[in-house]
């Protein structure tokens, strides 16, 4: 069947199932079970059997198609093939949910927390740089004020 590996395999497995089922339920077997009717009407038995087989196959294929449509299987098989293809290099088993949501959530949060951390680090560094500049101005301002006070004091003493 056309389509991706998974879809092809799925169709092949179902087809094989059908073939073997029909092979098991062969016409001989059927005629054998319905011996009394077969003796009476061999042609009719054949045509009833043929209809039985074709109808059964049609119903089963229809059901399979319905399952595929409902489960969106073609697309899922397609994307699963891609995912499997991407992982073909790796041998070891991949991660699986631990069953403890908090644990599994950590890795999902981590990249964002790391981003948050670098934002905070940058913010802290900027603030520290900024504050040290302002602190320089404050110190210079204090010196200036002390100087002015000294000047005033000198003038005051001179007057006194």
């Amino acid at each position, binding site marked *: 069947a056309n389509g991706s590996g998974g879809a092809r395999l799925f169709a092949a497995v179902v087809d094989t199932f059908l073939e073997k089922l029909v092979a098991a339920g062969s016409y001989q077997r059927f005629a054998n079970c319905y011996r009394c009717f077969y003796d009476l009407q061999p042609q009719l038995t054949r045509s009833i059997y043929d209809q039985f087989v074709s109808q059964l196959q049609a119903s089963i294929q229809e059901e399979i198609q319905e399952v595929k449509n409902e489960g969106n299987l073609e697309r899922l098989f397609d994307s699963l093939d891609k995912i499997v293809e991407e992982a073909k290099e790796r041998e070891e088993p991949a991660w699986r949910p631990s069953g403890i949501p908090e644990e*599994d959530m950590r890795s*999902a949060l981590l990249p*964002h927390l790391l*981003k*948050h951390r670098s934002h905070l680090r940058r913010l802290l560094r900027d603030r520290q740089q900024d504050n040290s500049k302002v602190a320089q101005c404050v110190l210079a301002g204090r010196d200036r004020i002390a100087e002015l006070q000294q000047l005033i004091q000198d003038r005051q003493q001179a007057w006194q």
Partner: protein
Amino acid sequence: FDELIVETAARRKQWPKKILVHAIQAMKAEQN
């Protein structure tokens, strides 16, 4: 049991994204 499995699996698939939305909002609010 089957529904439980499907429900759990669906949450494992969808909820990290949902939780992340709120976590990122909280971080952005913190930054602002």
